[in-house]
């Protein structure tokens, strides 16, 4: 392998030019180009998912009033969202955000970008499969978008698509939309499987000399564990949506009681996938925070092994907690009790991680760069999201808050406050390596601070209206007398959401402007220790020159007492070794 890689580099620079436009930018097998493709796709979908969220928020704050700018599209109602369109909007908001924003950005883009560069590999183990993985996911995304244009509208049974609502056309009135939803997720599942096999193989087989498992950066650990979860969880969803499609098309009755099926089977399949999925969304962000906190605290990560093992523990436990989504579903209450125990236990590794992040800050020399601010936002928002999860873990409390806005608040603190701030941190942090240019710091602050404030303005009050009893997925809270008194919160939340949307404009400007006109990035702009910073910015095809880097130490050697620089790259031999070499 290494012999091949070494000789291959001789051609690397030539190949890059010889490949032509199509093989370099479109059907590229270079992990860094595939990473960018995933990133662009994820960011594009982020805009669509975000606009759908604003539609939902408009309706909840000012029910049944014309949505500005929609009068031209919804001509029949003059811009007012109808209940079925509202259901479609929240269904597709969640579907797009989960499957086509967070997964492509965190697992797709940063998995592809970080794994080979940070373990010292020239590319993924299976570059062609990697390319296929992107184009499969891309196709799935196109198919999903096509669903907006079919008669009857897109899927409207929630991102969880509970059967039999999702399995019988008459129940929602949606025919092709739901079929397309199934087909797209089926395709996405196949794409993600290709990616995960690749990540796992690469991490196991292609680490540079000296890169032992416990010298791997935590973000690589997180992506490795995520890939294992993807490999094992996604096929369950893939089978589930196939069964759903069979019920819809072929007359089977997997989920239909009239034919002897069982609606709860869908929920078991969906959440058996769905809970590991939550960790698929958050683990890479945890890895990213674990990467960025030491760099800008100029300090080794606190409790490296505890960090790695707590992620492994989360990965194991994530398979046996899924029933907490089904406490009031009609599942045997004794099972509910068992799932409560496991759910309480899974909070422990998350707590360990939080305390270790705090330990990393303790005694550091903290630099408030834009990636650091986003990583700190990740940690603090994850704390809130984690703590609110304890309410749901307690089965009696969950009876009341299940299916209310409390859950919506919780999920958004975890996947927006957690995963999305993690994604922003990663984009700002690795942008110089990815595109060879620095991002604009002022625009970065202009993006971060309003985002952070509006994020909390949007999602914190959701706890309050949830405790007040507001159900998820209702079209108009004013239809309920017991919700009238808290409607002002819905208005505040929507104002927050609009602000949150506007706050993303500096990010878009910064992202594209820096890509073409940013200051050229030095090799190692953050004075970081990990391997990717030893490659050129941006790294060429096959990443390094004729020899691969050799790893001598752990990934977080900052402020080592005997050394003058406050960072000691993984490629730098420890003093004893260096001294021995001199003689």
């Amino acid at each position, binding site marked *: 392998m290494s012999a091949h890689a070494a000789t291959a580099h001789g051609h690397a620079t030539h190949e890059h030019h010889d490949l032509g436009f199509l093989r370099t930018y479109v059907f590229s097998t270079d992990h860094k180009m595939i990473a960018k493709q995933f990133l662009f796709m994820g960011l594009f979908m982020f805009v669509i998912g975000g606009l759908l969220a604003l539609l939902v928020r408009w309706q909840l704050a000012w029910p049944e009033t014309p949505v500005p700018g929609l009068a031209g599209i919804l001509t029949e109602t003059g811009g007012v969202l109808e209940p079925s369109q509202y259901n479609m909007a929240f269904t597709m908001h969640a579907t797009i955000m989960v499957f086509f924003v967070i997964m492509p950005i965190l697992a797709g883009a940063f998995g592809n970008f970080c794994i080979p560069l940070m373990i010292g590999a020239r590319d993924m183990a299976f570059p062609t499969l990697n390319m296929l993985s992107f184009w499969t996911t891309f196709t799935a995304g196109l198919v999903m978008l096509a669903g907006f244009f079919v008669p009857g509208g897109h899927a409207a049974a929630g991102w969880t698509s509970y059967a*039999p609502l999702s399995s019988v056309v008459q129940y929602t009135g949606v025919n092709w939309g739901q079929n397309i939803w199934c087909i797209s997720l089926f395709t996405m599942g196949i794409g993600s499987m290709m990616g995960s096999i690749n990540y796992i193989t690469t991490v196991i087989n292609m680490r540079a000399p000296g890169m032992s498992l416990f010298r791997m950066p935590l973000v690589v650990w997180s992506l490795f564990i995520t890939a294992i979860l993807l490999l094992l969880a996604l096929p369950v969803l893939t089978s589930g949506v196939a069964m759903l499609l069979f019920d819809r098309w072929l007359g089977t009755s997997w989920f239909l009681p009239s034919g002897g099926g*069982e609606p709860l089977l869908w929920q078991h399949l969906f959440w058996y996938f769905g809970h590991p999925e939550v960790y698929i969304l958050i683990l890479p962000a945890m890895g990213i925070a674990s990467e960025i906190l030491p760099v800008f605290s100029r300090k080794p990560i*606190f409790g490296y092994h505890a960090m790695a093992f707590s992620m492994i523990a989360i990965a194991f436990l994530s398979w046996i907690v899924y029933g907490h989504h089904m406490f009031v579903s009609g599942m045997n209450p004794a099972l509910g009790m068992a799932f409560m125990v496991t759910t309480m236990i899974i909070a422990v590794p998350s707590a360990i991680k939080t305390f270790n992040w705090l330990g990393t800050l303790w005694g550091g020399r*903290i*630099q408030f760069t834009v990636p650091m601010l986003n990583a700190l936002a990740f940690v603090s928002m994850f704390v809130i999201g984690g703590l609110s999860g304890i309410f749901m873990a307690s089965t*009696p*409390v969950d009876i009341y808050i299940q*299916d209310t806005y409390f859950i919506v608040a919780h999920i958004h603190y975890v996947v927006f406050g957690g995963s999305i701030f993690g994604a922003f941190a990663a984009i700002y942090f690795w942008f110089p390596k990815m595109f060879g240019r620095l991002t604009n710091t002022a625009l970065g602050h202009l993006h971060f601070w309003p985002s952070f404030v509006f994020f909390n303005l949007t999602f914190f009050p959701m706890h309050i209206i949830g405790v007040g009893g507001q159900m998820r997925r209702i079209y108009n809270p004013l239809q309920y007398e017991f919700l009238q008194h808290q409607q002002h919160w819905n208005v505040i939340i929507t104002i927050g959401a609009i602000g949150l949307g506007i706050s993303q404009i500096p990010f878009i400007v910064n992202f594209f402007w820096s890509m073409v006109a940013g200051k050229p990035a030095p090799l190692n702009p953050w004075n970081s220790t990990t391997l990717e910073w030893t490659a050129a910015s941006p790294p060429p095809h096959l990443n390094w020159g004729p020899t691969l880097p050799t790893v001598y130490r752990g990934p977080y050697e900052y402020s080592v007492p005997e050394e003058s620089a406050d960072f000691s790259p993984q490629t730098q031999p420890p003093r004893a070794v260096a001294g021995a070499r001199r003689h």
Partner: protein
Amino acid sequence: MLNWWLPENVSSFGGDIDWLFHLIYAITAITGILVFVAMGAFLVMYRDRPGRRARYTHGNTTLEIVWTIVPALILVVLTFLSVPAWSKIKMSMPPTDFVVEVNAKQFNWQVSYPGPDGKFGTEDDTLFLDEMHVPVNKPIRVVLKSQDVIHSFFVPSFRIKQDAVPGRAIQAWFDATKPGKYEWPCAELCGFGHSGMKGWVYVHTPADYEKWAAENLKGGGTAPAQEAKPKS
């Protein structure tokens, strides 16, 4: 006492839920505040200043053990404290002779009371749409069914939520402690009419209930329902 935005509780077991809610609220609020104070202090104390070098440490095993065990203990205690309420609400059924059947459909609650024969699904049943009448301080057993998709029986003031699943008859119960009229929404997405699918539960004093039953139920609601015999 501050109610922390919870609607009024008028259910016999609602207090158990609210108590746990407030307990978790206190635990998480204290934890959250401690974490944020520590974090804020670290960010200020250890901000980058010229001439200072970061502390070189890879961790501390004692601390690691402490912050594994302490949260674990708190969560174990919380689990044990949650068990009795869960058993009471979902795993047991108080003996009662008052049974109603709720058959949910898109987008209504169909409520039936058994007639003098004490059986559901016979001609002497009395049917109501989106309204249920019950006496106060009496355990009410609800047999939950659905004829199409999944719905969820939710009465915020009773702190009760239970999905109605087609193909199943799921038993739930509540015991309302205060006469009044309580909103009864569906809490599970059930289609385009999900929003606004709601009914009212009327809780009457015993005398008022007798009067209502005599006027509205076939047979005057005198016969106890057969299904109501407690499970042996």
